């Protein structure tokens, strides 16, 4: 959005605001004129419009702080008592404020003094003003709920898109000729030495493909499930690389039931193997760690390869940028995702998300 657009939309908002209150004012002017005429009172159209608009423009001005308050103190569960404690006195102040402002405005419309204008307002409009306050609050809430509902809907769509992307990535990894055909070749070789092991590898490859082809859109799985998926992948890679690849896991038992985004670790581990292990002849090690730290779940993937390299082509980082985007959509700012050189050389990817258990909402 350009600045011009912002100005335009803001302009339009205020214009609509003005038109809205003017229409209410005019409808009341009409009603005032008709009822006065019926009662035999002599009121001109000019007077009726001037009085009614006087009433409603004062409401219009006062509604601005009310909307501001309504946005700050909503009635979502948890802050109801506090919000009620704000809105009850605020409605009284609103009513009083209206009467003072209306009496002050009224001095231009009649000869009456401030006190003379104030007294009938106090008697006639006191409770009506309170009602208006709550109507403004209610309408503001309705708008807010609608806005939040739309945001949630968009967020869900975004999440679905990113999950689909993660799955596609997992599938691409498995259908990547380097992985797929080399794995099939390993199986072909194993069949001549150890038919059980070949069998096992076919099963692991099938399980991997099945998970990636799974059409359900489960956003979150338990860490246990995510690790099971990784184990299959790692087992295949270990069979392929033999002694060149060792895997070390250090998973705190109390983290196994924690919820993690589906397929969040796989691109990180794949990245570690492709850039940390494969290009080097020396034995490589991938380490997986999970621990609970003050309300957060900390996941780390570490390799002993070359560490942060500027020469890694940007398309190789696509996996990581999708990871970042997913974390942001799922957890907003309440997440951490960083890449840094590991203390002993190699790359350390550290991921911090709120700790949530499988069966509890929070």
């Amino acid at each position: 959005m350009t600045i011009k657009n912002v100005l335009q939309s803001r302009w339009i908002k205020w214009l609509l605001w003005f038109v809205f209150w003017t229409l209410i004012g005019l409808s009341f002017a009409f009603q005032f004129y008709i009822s006065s005429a019926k009662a035999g009172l002599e009121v001109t159209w000019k007077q009726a419009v001037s009085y009614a608009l006087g009433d409603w423009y004062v409401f219009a001005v006062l509604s601005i702080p009310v909307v501001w308050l309504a946005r700050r103190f909503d009635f979502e569960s948890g802050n109801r008592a506090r919000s009620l404690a704000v809105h009850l006195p605020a409605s009284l102040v609103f009513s009083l404020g209206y009467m003072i402002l209306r009496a002050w405005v009224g001095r231009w419309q009649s000869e009456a003094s401030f006190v003379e204008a104030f007294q009938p307002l106090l008697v006639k409009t006191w409770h009506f003003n309170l009602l208006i306050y709550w109507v403004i609050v209610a309408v503001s809430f309705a708008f807010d709920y609608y806005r939040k509902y739309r945001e949630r809907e968009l967020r869900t769509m975004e999440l679905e898109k990113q999950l689909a992307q993660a799955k596609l990535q997992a599938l691409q990894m498995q259908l990547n000729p380097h992985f797929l055909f080399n794995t099939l070749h390993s199986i072909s070789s194993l069949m001549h030495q150890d038919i059980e092991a070949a069998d096992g590898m076919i099963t692991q490859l099938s399980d991997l493909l099945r998970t990636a082809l799974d059409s359900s859109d489960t956003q979150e799985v338990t860490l246990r499930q995510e690790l099971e998926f990784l184990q299959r992948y790692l087992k295949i890679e270990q069979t392929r690389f033999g002694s060149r690849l060792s895997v070390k896991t250090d998973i705190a038992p109390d983290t196994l039931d924690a919820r993690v985004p589906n397929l969040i670790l796989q691109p990180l581990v794949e990245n570690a193997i492709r850039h940390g292990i494969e290009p080097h002849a020396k034995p490589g090690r991938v380490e997986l760690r999970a621990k609970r730290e003050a309300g957060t779940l900390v996941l780390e993937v570490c390799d002993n390869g070359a560490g942060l390299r500027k020469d890694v082509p940007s398309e190789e980082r696509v996996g990581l940028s999708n990871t970042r985007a997913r974390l942001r959509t799922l957890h907003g700012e309440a997440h951490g995702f960083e890449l840094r050189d590991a203390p002993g050389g190699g790359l350390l990817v550290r991921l911090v998300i709120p700790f949530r258990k499988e069966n509890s909402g929070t």
Partner: protein
Amino acid sequence: MKIRTLIVDDEPLARDRLRQLLQDEKNIEITGECADGLEAVAAIRKTAPDLLFLDVQMPEIDGFGVLEALGTVPMPVIVFVTAYEQFAVRAFEVHAVDYLLKPFDRERFKKALRRAIDQVGNREGGVFQQRQSACSTICCHPDWR
């Protein structure tokens, strides 16, 4: 005389597969196995094999890097063994005698081996030079398309 053969692949199971297949051949002698490009360069310089089964994607330097590093050392006959088909054109440019796509079966392997044995025989017969230049003008072996 046996054909002295070197196996180069970073994956142990892939080396196993080639060894299994080559062990059944009476006129092949496996002189060594290498797990990465650098090792391969050293082994070729040291043992000067007649035939080389060469993987492309390897740690440190890849299969083409191995050939570059060798420079003017007498080249063995080369059979590339890889999971990628997109290297076929480049393999042809460096006069590989065949290009085996993983996974492959015994029949396909035999075909490659026969071709390689012919090539080694031709070289020893001194017709290698003509054969090679003929190859680069024809450049349309059916298996490479």
